């Protein structure tokens, strides 16, 4: 048989299996969130059924704290993203435009730090966070999430700012602008794509993160994944539907976001993998 047919057939087999592997678990959980508890484990599985919103109604009746969790997740995600964006823009600008031994060392430091496992820092941080009264606050999660993504975001922004010709800034300077005006009026508007590429990762991480939330929140600042885990731990037999509804509510917005910005994810992972 001709090489080309082998490749054509091989390509479609691989892609079909890949799509099934990636999509099937998500599809099953989301579709089952609209099933009655009898249909959820029906044999054979039902792919065509009368959708019901009972699970969603039950979810918000029995787990009102899930809504609080979503609100907390939203606040923390926005906070961590804004913090990451601002600090990384400044640093990315510095690494792009200035060169010195100190900067090289600090760039290396940023990459080194990113290699350290997050769960390890929880141990020394735990007493410190308690002592400062930051435990169970939005602030501590915002700070932690930002801290673990500023180095990636900085590198992504650096590579984007490298593409902005220096002459544009020189022109702005000749026209009378200070370094801050250049940042706001020239660099910022021209690195919007870089900002998106840099922020995508912290958005997804902050919305989905479990370990830090588990350790540093107890009540007020609990995030959606944490409540989701609680629902998961509390289910008995018939309550799978509620769990699926909760998982779907938590998943669908971020899934839509990821699919919307997938080009930036590719750019960002590529840039980040090359430099840090």
């Amino acid at each position, binding site marked *: 048989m001709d090489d080309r047919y082998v490749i054509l057939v091989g390509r479609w087999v691989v892609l079909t299996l890949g799509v099934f592997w990636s999509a099937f678990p998500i599809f099953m959980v989301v579709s089952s969130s609209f099933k009655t508890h009898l249909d959820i484990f029906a044999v054979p599985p039902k792919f065509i059924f009368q959708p019901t919103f009972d699970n969603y109604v039950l979810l918000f009746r029995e787990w009102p704290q899930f809504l609080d969790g979503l609100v907390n997740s939203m606040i923390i995600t926005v906070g961590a993203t804004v913090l990451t964006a601002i600090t990384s823009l400044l640093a990315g600008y510095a690494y792009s435009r200035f060169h010195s031994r100190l900067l090289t060392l600090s760039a290396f430091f940023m990459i080194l730090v990113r290699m350290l496992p997050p769960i390890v820092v929880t141990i020394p941080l735990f007493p410190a966070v308690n002592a400062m009264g930051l435990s169970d606050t939005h602030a501590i999660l915002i700070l932690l999430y930002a801290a673990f993504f500023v180095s990636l975001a900085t590198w992504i922004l650096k590579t984007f700012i490298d593409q902005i010709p220096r002459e*544009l800034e020189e*022109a*702005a*300077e*000749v*026209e*009378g*602008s200070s370094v801050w*005006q250049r940042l706001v009026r020239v660099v910022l508007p021209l690195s919007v794509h870089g900002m998106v590429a840099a922020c995508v990762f912290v958005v997804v991480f902050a919305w989905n993160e479990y370990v830090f939330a588990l350790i540093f929140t107890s009540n007020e600042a609990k995030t959606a994944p944490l409540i989701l885990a609680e629902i998961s731990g509390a289910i008995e037999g018939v309550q799978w539907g509620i769990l699926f509804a909760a998982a779907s509510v938590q998943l669908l917005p971020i899934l839509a976001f990821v699919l919307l910005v997938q080009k930036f994810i590719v750019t960002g992972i590529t840039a980040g993998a090359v430099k840090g």
Partner: protein
Amino acid sequence: MSTLILEGLSKNYGEVEALIGVDLNVGDGEFIVLVGPSGCGKSTLLRCIAGLEKQSAGDIRIDDRSITGVQTRDRNVAMVFQSYALFPHLTVAENIAFGLRIRRTDKSVIEERVAHAAGLLGLGELTGRYPRELSGGQRQRVAMGRAIVRDPVLFLFDEPLSNLDAKLRVQMRTEMKALRQRLGITSIYVTHDQDEAMTLADRIVVMNNGRIEQIGTPMELYDAPVNLFVAGFMGSPPMNFIELHRKGGNSGAQLETASGQPVPLPERGLSPGVRSVVLGVRPEGLRIDDGGPLKGTVEVVEPKGSETQVFVRLDDLHLLCVTAGKRATFQPGDPVGIAFDATESHLFDTDSGQKITTEKGTAA
């Protein structure tokens, strides 16, 4: 309206000396063109005046006030960049208004001035467009608009026409000249194109290796270059150079070419120690004349329409360009003689390259 004085301006990047003791006085409203080969320091000089680079030594004064410690943004100069450096996220009007916005100028004033500048440059229809939607010439005009809109004390141009194609470049050069006569603002214009320099300048500054070689009006530089570099740089096609050696003893001895052709030149001005000199004659200072002292063979003939350039092979080292009449009928291979006018010839010291002043002799 302002004057600019540079005093002993030097700039080095580590070991590399980009500018070495540059002195220059620019009068009010004067249009100065800095010209020289790439890497000669002309752009560095411009950037020092703008404050984009900090000089290593020396002083820059505008209206007799030193601006050495003054930030670029407070120097109130305007600059047109080679790449135009238009802000891609802003419209034409916003690009032109950028400096005024930074200075928080009144909105109605901005509108009025932008409209005026756009009108002056023929950009009236385009103010709502973005730079990527403009042609090269239009972008160049927007860059000009940004420079003229806020009454700077000084215009700085960094090879503003070099990104345009040849035809547009000539057209923009003419427009630039008209504009400069109209605005009359003190300007420093950097280019590597000597045609541009000749056309635009009140005075030309020829630079090489970080130093000023000569300052003068276009005709002064053309007629009286002070050294080999300036002589060779200004004029197109360039000046012909012929190396001459002194034959025999000291005074009274003859100058001749490497191949031994004697060249009759008055040599009263030549100091006795000089063994060899370089004779420089522009193509229009040479003429084909079978009685001329230099003998050679026609190698290439290039009709230019209004005239014909004839390239004559003198010897292995020398191919001379001679401007001949419109209907010159020479053929490659023709043996010819070349005569030259001593009043249009220049003698340079072979070692230092400096001009040797001789008393004008008679035509050879």
